[in-house]
């Protein structure tokens, strides 16, 4: 019954999506909006990476919402796992093998540094706050593998989460009060293209996003790590 129903649903969806895909030809230019961004993005936002100029410039409000989604999910995960009868007390710290321990201690600062590089250069090269934050979080993942059961300092990570989110909103509100009086408008000088200190508020927002995503994803990993006790 259920299988037959699923196959019918799937067939309808397949025909529909297939037909719709054929209506969107592959590889041909089709949008004025995208062309406008490629044409004017450098002058209007000062970023060399057009994806960044869209993510943190033209559609920065989406990014604010997206950071919020991650915040909601991390909070919700914490709430679900710590609800009545959830967590069973403290975990025991069990060091893994010496090789893994030494390796993770050696690699962790380098990975974190690389993550910071990725989100600092988001407006120049591929990468940005999300990718950099994910790299930082994978550094934390490695640290967990090295010392099984160790927990990050939750108060520190709560403060990092909240302050980076707040920084994003405050940057937006400053844009509302100075300059063009638009929420999230780029009120700082855009500088010379392809230099580190350019593109106005874009690097600042990406730093906030990097911290936010990094602390959020680390928190998710911390919540889900097996309790060894």
């Amino acid at each position, binding site marked *: 019954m259920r299988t037959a129903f699923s196959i019918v649903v799937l067939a309808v969806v397949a025909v529909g999506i297939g037909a719709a895909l054929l209506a969107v030809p592959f590889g041909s230019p089709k949008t004025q909006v995208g062309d406008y961004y490629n044409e004017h993005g450098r002058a209007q936002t000062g970023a060399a*990476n057009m*994806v*960044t100029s869209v993510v943190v410039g033209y559609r920065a409000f989406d990014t604010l919402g997206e950071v919020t989604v991650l915040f909601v999910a991390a909070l919700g995960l914490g709430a679900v796992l710590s609800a009545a009868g959830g967590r069973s007390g403290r975990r025991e710290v069990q060091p893994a093998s010496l090789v893994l321990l030494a390796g993770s201690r050696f690699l962790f600062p380098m990975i974190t540094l690389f993550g910071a590089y*990725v989100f600092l250069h988001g407006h120049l090269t*591929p*990468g*940005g706050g*999300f*990718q950099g934050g*994910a*790299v930082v*979080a*994978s550094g934390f*993942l490695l640290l967990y593998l090295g010392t099984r059961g160790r927990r990050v300092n939750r108060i520190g990570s709560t403060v990092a989460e909240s302050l980076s989110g707040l920084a994003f909103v405050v940057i937006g509100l400053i844009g509302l009060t100075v300059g063009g009086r638009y929420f999230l408008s780029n009120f700082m000088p855009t500088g010379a293209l392809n230099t580190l200190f350019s593109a106005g508020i874009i690097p600042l927002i990406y730093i906030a996003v990097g911290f936010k995503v990094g602390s959020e*994803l680390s928190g*998710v*990993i911390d919540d*889900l*790590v*097996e*309790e060894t006790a």
Partner: protein
Amino acid sequence: MIVVVASLVAVMLAAAIAALVFRDLLSSVIASCPVSLVASILFLFLQAPDVAMAEASIGAALITAVFVMAIRRTSRYEE
């Protein structure tokens, strides 16, 4: 070029089907990892290096790790 793309797509779909049929959840998750990995290579071919980076670091690495953690705290096999 097209041969490379077509074979990558084939690998990706094969990995997804493997994730569908495996009864062992751990194998299923490990099989879905190449889906993200190949997708990230295809994103690179489609001139989307930003997305390729995000897909590789989040989709292939972090999600797999999070799945493995969750499976360790639950049960490994589908009943």
